[in-house]
């Protein structure tokens, strides 16, 4: 790691001021992405503003939502009783991610902002990576693909958004609360991430120095059943090849409400709006589930290394729906 100035922030306004004013500055939360990429030489900020002492920790229930301070760790959020009872798929996604050690460090704000796992992005000896340097090309498209996206890709980047917990959160229409130099704002997670297009280096709507202060999770109706299914190369401690977050409400065998999102396939956590349209009003069973999966992956643009993901993602969604509905 190269040298940098370490600043321990005590006030959110000050932290935002420092990073907004200095293009060489970055926030440091749990450090599990930031320090990792600095060691690899992918990031080399001159100043790190440690935000872990800011009063942005803790989980508060307010009526029909829970407000999660940005510095709440993944383990803390997974242990929350309201999360466990009302949105268990958020807990499942958290516990299916990383390891206990990393989850004790990693914050929910940092998790949403984790960077691509693309091996070319993480290796500065590879020159071509539009995400690292705009206009330099994309080594993955002509290289080896596996942990890459098949939905929302562009000719300039096929990197995956690898967060697990962002998948159920986007299905729930979670809100991201932020603070910038001109005050606070609230951005729906569904509009937070930006597909790569021809600027893969721009990953979300945050402005320089804008701080995530909290993530607000709307609680679905009490009878909603939820499930997160993650398929990966080993049973634990591995990123998703494909995953599905599903929340459904049933009236007998009729699906009256459905929220669906996929992980492991999108350049951004993938809300499957079309699948929801298919499922709402449908009868529980293979036919509806298969159709929901087909419409979701209809726009998939796989590369040779990711071709297997198209069918795997469909089956992942179907299995998740079978589990959550208790379908035979």
């Amino acid at each position, binding site marked *: *790691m*190269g*040298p*940098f*100035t*370490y600043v*321990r922030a005590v006030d959110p306004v000050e932290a935002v001021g420092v990073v907004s004013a200095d293009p060489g500055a970055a926030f*440091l939360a*749990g*450090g*599990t992405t930031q*320090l*990792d990429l600095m*060691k*690899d030489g992918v990031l080399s900020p*001159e100043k*790190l503003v*440690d935000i*872990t002492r800011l009063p942005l920790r803790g989980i508060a229930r307010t009526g029909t939502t829970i407000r999660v301070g940005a510095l709440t760790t993944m*383990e803390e959020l997974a242990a929350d009783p309201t999360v466990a009872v009302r949105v268990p798929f958020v807990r499942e996604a958290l516990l299916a991610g*990383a*390891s*206990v*050690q*990393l989850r*004790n*460090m990693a914050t929910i704000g940092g998790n949403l902002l984790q960077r691509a796992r693309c091996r070319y992005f993480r290796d500065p000896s590879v020159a071509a990576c539009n995400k690292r340097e705009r206009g330099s090309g994309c080594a993955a498209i002509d290289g080896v693909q596996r942990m890459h996206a098949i939905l929302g890709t562009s000719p300039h980047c096929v990197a995956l958004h690898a967060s697990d917990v962002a998948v159920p959160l986007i299905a729930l229409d979670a809100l991201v609360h932020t603070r910038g130099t001109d005050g606070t704002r609230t951005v729906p997670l569904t509009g937070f991430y930006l597909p790569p297009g021809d600027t893969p280096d721009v990953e979300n709507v945050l402005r320089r120095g804008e701080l995530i202060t909290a993530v607000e999770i709307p609680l679905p109706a009490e009878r909603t059943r939820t499930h997160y299914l993650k398929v990966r190369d080993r*049973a*634990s*401690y591995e990123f998703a090849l494909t995953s599905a977050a599903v929340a459904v409400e049933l009236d007998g065998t009729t699906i009256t409400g459905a929220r669906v999102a996929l992980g492991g396939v999108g350049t951004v956590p993938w809300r499957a709006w079309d699948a929801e349209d298919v499922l709402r009003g449908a009868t529980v069973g293979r036919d509806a589930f298969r159709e929901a999966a087909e419409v979701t992956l209809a726009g998939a643009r796989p590369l040779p290394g990711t071709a297997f993901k198209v069918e795997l993602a469909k089956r992942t969604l179907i299995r998740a729906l079978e589990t959550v509905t208790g379908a035979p």
Partner: protein
Amino acid sequence: MKTREEALSRLGASVGVEFGVNGVRRRVGVEGRVTLLDWLRDELGLTGVKKGCDQGACGACTVLVDGKRVVACLMLVAQCDGREVTTVEGVAGVGEAGAVQDAFVRHDAFQCGYCTPGQIMSAIALIGEGRAGTREEIAEFMSGNLCRCGAYPRIRDAIVDAAGGEVG
């Protein structure tokens, strides 16, 4: 405009950190970029904290910070201000072994031993978290500690034993 020398000295400026390591209070000035892993090993000689991957992936550097297990390779010393750090050297008295360490010896839960301090620190935390109920649970919640020698079955035996269960 600042000169390059000024910029560099500012970059390398030392940060005041006051924290506990294995029960001993420390007041140190340390450069911002020094990781807890490197500092524990190089400054305090606590070489029980192992460097495997240096990337958060293997768990060899697992220590407890305020009682919670973390990987010391992805944490700065500067971030430890006001915290209490426990390494494998700190879990029992000098020349003594803790219960988990004893169980590892009894069950021969290692081959080369490189991952062992990290496994032990993680196992101590695991038992404290109440996640050592079944072998499946142990496997899942110890997955952040890799063992290149593949001593997993015996590591699990040792943990079941240390947690007061029946080794099947």
